[in-house]
């Protein structure tokens, strides 16, 4: 059924269709609509789930970790400072190999206070063992939540679905809300191999100072590798039922492209318009949207970018003292290719809700086309001088 939904509510629908059983959350703008709607859905019976309003984001993640290890399908949502507060528990969810699914509505961190979009929050959590998606539309937000449960439960790792604050969270779009029966067909009930069970008592997370610790950690990396394949399988199953799908990376007009833009989230939508304009002028420009950031799709990125002359990466966050995180990772991916590889021009833009307008993206492409090599690791676009 088609509905006009804000991105936040599209996530809520995705969670309800996935039949989450325990939801714990704490309010933070621009996430709050997700859990408000879910509390309504639990209250009026649309979702047979327990909604717990806890005392902090740290507790929200701890609560769903407890519920997950006890065998329930769980959900939480957060943004910005809330995600930062959860940091310890993000490690815990992954270390305990629990298929927690969380929506993170991308928002910058203060000070100074700012509630608007950039990717500083989730980019800071790349090393915690969470699978990460960045979506571009409200439809994709809903669909990715459903896919996230399938992937998480197959590989026993948590999944973070990131959507741009306000650009998606508070913007209404037409969303095709799937039928429950169709979702049930791609997402069976959660039935973990191990859980807290008085009939089969086990201890989870006991101290381990020997080589088993290394084995458990390498197991997470193996599961990450597995999740890359699982994401593609889940996406194929999804396509069969729903007729739409999303690759882990999404190429746009890459045929013969000499300059390729790379970005994640809603910046890709604006970038498409800019790519079209360059193409109309006869300039071979293309776009690669990174949808899955963890595990990092090395193989796809290498094969799609290696033939280009230049790569322009738009980062909505910065690792201070280094460069944009996405640019750093694209460089790392290309370094692994044989022979020469194209130079990567990193652009820092759109921080704290700064609009990423077509003119700014055109400027990035033009600057990139002029230079043989980037003058520095990152160039800031839109800084008021």
């Amino acid at each position, binding site marked *: 059924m088609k509905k006009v939904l804000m991105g936040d509510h599209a996530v809520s629908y995705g969670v309800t269709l996935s039949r989450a059983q325990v939801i*714990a959350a704490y309010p933070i703008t621009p996430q709050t609509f997700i859990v408000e709607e879910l509390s309504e859905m639990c209250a009026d019976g649309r979702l047979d789930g327990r909604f*717990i309003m806890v*005392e902090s984001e*740290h507790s929200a993640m701890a*609560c769903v970790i407890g*519920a997950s290890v*006890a065998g329930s399908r769980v959900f939480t949502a957060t943004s910005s400072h809330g995600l930062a507060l959860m940091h310890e528990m993000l490690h815990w969810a992954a270390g305990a190999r629990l298929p927690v699914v969380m929506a993170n509505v991308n928002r910058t961190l203060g000070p100074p206070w700012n509630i608007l979009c950039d990717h500083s929050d989730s980019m800071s959590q790349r090393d915690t063992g969470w699978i990460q998606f960045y979506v571009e539309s409200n439809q994709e937000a809903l669909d990715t939540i459903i896919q996230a449960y399938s992937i998480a439960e197959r590989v026993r790792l948590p999944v973070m679905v990131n959507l741009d604050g306000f650009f998606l969270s508070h913007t209404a779009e037409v969303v095709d809300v799937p039928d429950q029966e169709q979702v049930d067909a791609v997402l069976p009930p959660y039935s973990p191999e191990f859980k*807290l069970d008085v009939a089969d008592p*086990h201890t989870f997370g*006991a101290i381990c100072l020997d080589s088993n610790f290394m084995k458990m950690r390498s197991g997470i990396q193996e599961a990450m590798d597995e999740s890359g394949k699982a994401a593609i399988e889940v996406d194929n199953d999804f396509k069969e039922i729903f007729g739409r799908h999303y690759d882990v990376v999404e190429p746009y007009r890459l045929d013969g492209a000499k300059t390729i833009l790379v970005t994640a989230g809603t910046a890709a939508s604006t970038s498409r318009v800019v790519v079209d304009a360059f193409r109309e002028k006869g300039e071979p420009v293309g776009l690669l949207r990174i949808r899955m950031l963890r595990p990092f799709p090395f193989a796809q990125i290498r094969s799609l970018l290696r033939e280009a002359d230049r790569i322009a990466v738009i980062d909505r966050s910065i690792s201070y003292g280094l460069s944009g995180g996405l640019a750093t990772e694209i460089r790392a991916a290309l370094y692994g290719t044989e022979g020469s590889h194209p130079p990567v021009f990193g652009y820092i833009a759109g921080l704290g809700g700064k609009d990423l307008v077509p003119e700014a993206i055109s400027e990035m492409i033009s600057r990139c086309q002029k230079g043989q090599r980037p003058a520095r690791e990152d160039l800031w676009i839109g800084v008021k001088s």
Partner: protein
Amino acid sequence: MTAPMTAEKELMSPGHLACAGCGAALAMRYALEALGPRTIIVLPACCWSIIAGPFPHSTLRVPTFHAAFETAAVTAAGVRAALDMQGKSDINVMAWAGDGGTFDIGIQALSGAAERNDDIIYICYDNEAYMNTGIQRSSATPNLAWTTTTPRGKLRAKKNIMAIMAAHMIPYAATASIAFPDDFVAKLKKAAGITGTRFFHVLATCPVGWRIPSNLSVKMARLAVHTNVFPLYEVEEGERYHLTVPSRNLPVEDYLKPQGRFQNLTAEMIAEIQQEVDRNWAKLNRLAADPS
């Protein structure tokens, strides 16, 4: 005890890693005796993270989840919610935390769970300092006690955690002692029949941190009760106080003198502690006398 405990039926098996004379080990033994096999334990960072044993061994024969330091209550609440959704409301979910994880770093999550009246049994085994990291003061450390971070003695009173929990109007809160297992077990069995947040404050001696010989562990716990330093009582619905074990009203010095952590106390300091204990005891008796 209604019957002597035997190794075969006990839910805490031999081979745990507690120090000799550990009050926390005894406390767990009694708790599992009372609550039985349909119990799930949530264990935040505390001495018991070690006592339970290293992977792949465990001294605990009930399902156990090791949780982050500050999350005992809310992790237990999550376990509870999942069990309820699976129709397993009869299973006890027991958060088992030390004084640091309860009085200090875990109090936010504990307060949240108590305010929501989450259906969990929360047991704080209080050894009155961060013993697992080597005897650093916590807000449960008593006035004038030595720790490695209070080299001249702590200069503030112990936080009144029972008053804090009672103020949440939870259905049941109780103190308990490893020296009075009958009282502890009876309270646990009573609590198991109540729905909502049930809180236990258990004094668990630590021979290493208190600087006492390990054979005095239970004796010190008993003296804490009989000197009114740690009275045994329960609070129902945050208001109805009942003293459960009569006190012998012994001088506080009997309790302080054998402990190395109080060895530098002057006569004036002991008198100060006696006054503080008398004040608290009188207040508790007033509360217990109030028919409301």
